[in-house]
């Protein structure tokens, strides 16, 4: 049977060289899972960028996405705060309904 639960879909736009650190911290905060989503470019206060593998990924970004409950959001943000501040990362949170088979929903 399908179960529907309210979850937060939290996304962090991470510079590729930073990815490993973000992931390790997130796993320490006991998230149940994560999915990495690609980007192709962008622009902001610090200028434009586009995916550029040649420069060792220094200028590329990836989105770290995780579906978590409210308590985990707070735990995760607390742990990530130094990284978010230091590297000016952008985090977004959206309310979603998560649907899975009940045997799968841990």
């Amino acid at each position, binding site marked *: 049977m399908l179960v529907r639960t309210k979850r937060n879909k939290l996304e962090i736009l991470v510079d590729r060289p930073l990815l490993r650190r973000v992931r390790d911290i997130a796993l320490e905060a006991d998230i149940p899972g994560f999915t990495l989503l690609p980007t192709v470019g962008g622009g902001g206060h*610090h200028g434009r*960028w586009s995916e550029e*593998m*040649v420069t060792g990924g*220094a*200028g590329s970004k990836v989105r770290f996405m995780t579906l978590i409950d409210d308590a985990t959001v707070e735990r995760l943000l607390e742990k990530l705060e130094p990284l978010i501040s230091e*590297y000016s990362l952008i985090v977004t949170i959206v309310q979603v309904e998560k649907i899975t088979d009940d045997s799968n929903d841990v």
Partner: protein
Amino acid sequence: MWSNGLTVIHMDVLLSPIILFFVLGALAAFARSDLAFPEALSKALSLYLMAAIGLKGGTLVAETGFTGDLVLAGLAGLLLSCLIPLGAFALLRGFGRLDTTNSAALAAHYGSVSVVTFVTGNQILGDQGLPPAGYMVAVLALMETPAIIVGLILARRGASDSVGVSGGKELLRETLLNGSVVLLTGSFIIGVIIGKDGMEPIAPVFVVGFNGLLCLFLLDMGLLAARRLREARSLTLRLVVLGLAFPVINGAIGVALGAVLGFDVGTAAALGILAASASYIAVPAAMRLALPKADAGLYLAMSLAVTFPFNITIGIPLYTAFAQFWIS
């Protein structure tokens, strides 16, 4: 006589397909053409060039054996990659009017090296009958990392700036195991093991195809460099001047050191090329981690869009001329 020689070499080099494809890429990007290489192709070509140059150097060393020159060249390279950042830092702070963090980040780029600049120089020198010694590939690999540490020390002395969250140890590990360092060193060692005979069956890909694939890669580098230049915001005139002066100064120092150590023309020129070149692979990634407040757009623009094109077109023949003048 000498200046004539220089001009001849230079024109010759500027009309070689390698350079012409680079210019084509730059022109296309300046004209805002939508010509673009898929990322995977750029990366593939860059991996190929590293494997090929590593194998080339290794098989050469397999023939000549490990000589004292190899050790000398390694030490010279290390010395250059530690000292160049100091001079660069001073000039960037003073003449360049940059803050400590950005100066330190940029200084690290100039102390480190650019694989493609070396590869192109190596090819051009070889075409002119001045092939550098095979061990210069090992020197190339050696010079990738030390400048990063010097740069971070410079940044830390600048007190107020906190250095990235990541502990120095983890960063060091990541930098030493950077893909380009591993592939270069690994292929070099494979080259040493298999020697000239072992290269034969794989030579069609790694030797015969080299020049043509380098053309394609430089076409892409022309596109990237010109695009970076067009979008560089924080690049001031003073910084552009430094981006052109650094390679000339460092190149001259590198060639002089090579001459003093008794290297042949090609090898001394190659040491000059290494000193003159600026990293755009290992160092930017390390700086993004360690000095997050430094402007990534700026250091990539200086390295890729100012110094790299200068070296490819004018620098390489210039350092060769230095070497010819001082050695022969």
